[in-house]
């Protein structure tokens, strides 16, 4: 991380309501190029809601979100521009079950980036090699294990050559023996300089690659800091309590 690194995402005083329920209560965050951000906190604290406002899967009602110089408004062109530069990986993988792995990966590059099929497939193969499953290209998602599916989902997001990757609990739906294969891919991605926002409770991952961590509770950021700060000297009682709970097993 150099001081001169450009700002990728600016979040200022963002509020979000679901009906009367105040889900995000004034979130502020500044993310620079190449930073790896880990967001953690108890269930229902608004982590998913927050990360999904970045690519407008959820809208926010107050405050401002700027992604790579583009302000998120209701303007669909801004939203599509931001989505093209932002990859997302979901807890439930959300692969398209009717398409092969190859088709899953090349769909968006061909339709949105207007690449030729050939170019898209070449890049897809490279990405499948990068995530370690080149031999699965012509299978359907239903024929793969959870860990393999999640790696395909990462490759699919990367195929659009995004500048930012959003991860919403990418390993929570996986059996323990598959978590590592997905985390390995994410660690490699982090080291390659990708800007990443990761909601996760994998504290080993956070310790290894996170630049900063944010603890969410009840729609607010309770505490933030480097992994060292958070793990060794948490300031807030709630952070301590939560960490002791998840680190105890």
């Amino acid at each position, binding site marked *: 991380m150099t001081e001169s690194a450009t700002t990728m995402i600016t979040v200022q005083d963002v509020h979000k309501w679901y009906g009367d329920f105040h889900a995000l209560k004034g979130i502020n965050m500044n993310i620079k190029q190449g930073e790896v951000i880990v967001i953690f906190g108890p269930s229902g604290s608004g982590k998913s809601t927050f990360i999904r406002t970045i690519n407008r*899967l959820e809208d926010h009602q107050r405050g401002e979100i700027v992604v790579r110089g583009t302000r998120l408004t209701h303007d669909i062109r801004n939203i599509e521009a931001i989505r*093209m530069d932002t990859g997302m990986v*979901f807890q439930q993988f*959300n692969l398209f*079950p*009717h398409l092969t792995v190859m088709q899953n990966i090349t769909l968006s590059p061909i339709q*949105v980036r207007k690449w030729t099929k050939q170019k898209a497939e070449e890049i897809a193969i490279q990405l499948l090699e990068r995530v370690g499953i080149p031999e699965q290209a012509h299978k359907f998602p*239903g024929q793969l294990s959870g860990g393999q599916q999640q790696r395909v*989902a990462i490759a699919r*997001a990367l195929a659009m050559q995004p500048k930012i990757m959003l991860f919403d609990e990418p390993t929570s739906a996986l059996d323990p023996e598959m978590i590592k294969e997905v985390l390995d891919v994410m660690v490699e991605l982090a080291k390659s300089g990708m800007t990443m926002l990761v909601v996760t409770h994998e504290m080993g991952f956070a310790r290894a690659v996170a630049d900063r961590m944010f603890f969410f509770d009840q729609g607010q950021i309770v505490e933030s800091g480097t992994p060292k700060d958070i793990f060794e000297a948490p300031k807030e009682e709630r952070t301590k309590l939560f960490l002791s709970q998840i680190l105890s097993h």
Partner: protein
Amino acid sequence: MNQSNTILPPITERSGFIGWLRKNLFGTWLDSFLTIVSVVFIYWVIKALYTWVFTIAEWEVIAANLRLFIIGQFPLEQAGRLWIALAFLLFLTGNSLAIWDKRAYAPAVLTLCFPLFLAFLPFENSTRQWLIILAVTGFVGWRLGFSKPDALKKTVVIGWVIALPIFVLLTRGFTETDGVGALAIVGTNLWGGLLLSFLLTVVANIFSFPLGLALALGRRSELPIIRWFSIGYIELIRGVPLITILFMAQLMLPLFLPDSINVDRVLRAMIGMTLFSAAYLAENVRGGLQAIPKGQFEASYALGLNSIQTMTFVIMPQALRLIIPILVGQFIAVFKDTALVAIVGLFDLLGIGRTVLAQPEFLGLHREVFAFISLIYWVLSYAMSYISQRLEESLGVGKR
């Protein structure tokens, strides 16, 4: 297998057919009683049916009017056009079977040989020749499909797309008189029998498809006008029996149109059936759409696809696959519903049946005529349902 621990039942209980009978049909006194009653009943029905079919029924009524049943009053000297249209369809079928259903040897051979089976029935010789030509074109198409499946794929798809226009063009003709490069027009008032039922079914199903999709999407639209229109249309049509829509199409449509536009009666029926079928299709598609998890939309949007691309490439293909059995059910229902056009005065299979019964020499042969018509409906409906099962298997419906 853990053979050594399995205790086998006594020999008498296991032995083949007798054992099976004992277990399944004569297990208890009640079972035995029901079995005997059923056997007696089935025997009685079959015997009555057999006696009627082979000794009492006068099948001359069918044989003498076979042409009417198949093509209505369509002029005999023009029938060659219909055979050519059919041959084209069979050729495409052969092609498609070879390209998309390679392993299904037996069904393919059975389908393509079907005209040959028909050739054994007491037809005139010219009909026999045409039936044989049909089978031959079918097999030629099949062989061709095997020899170069990849090169032919596109052509075959195009072939299916233009199949209906070609069929209609050949049926109707386009010039005043016959001649080189010309086909005399055969007015739709002469179309009848199975030909008319078939065309009504195909047209209504094909055109209701885009309309139904549009209505299903319209019903989910964020624009209130489009949504209300779609809901209004769907609920209105679904609340009205098809027969009233057919009457409306015959009687009311001309009122809405300027005098200069004269919509032909067959076309009116086609429009009525299409509008009717579209409303049901829309509801079926909506059901399919609702079954697609929200995550599929989100993943697609997150990849930068817009809402039209998301629908086209991600959501619709899955939704339609889910409802294939329902769609085929609806296609078959439309086919059977075409019988209602007889009531508004068209001569479809049923309508022709009624004119045949009005012939003095065949008075009172209702049983034979209706049995024959039912048989045709059943054979074709069953064929469609069989094709749909194969389609489901080859598309892997159910294994998501």
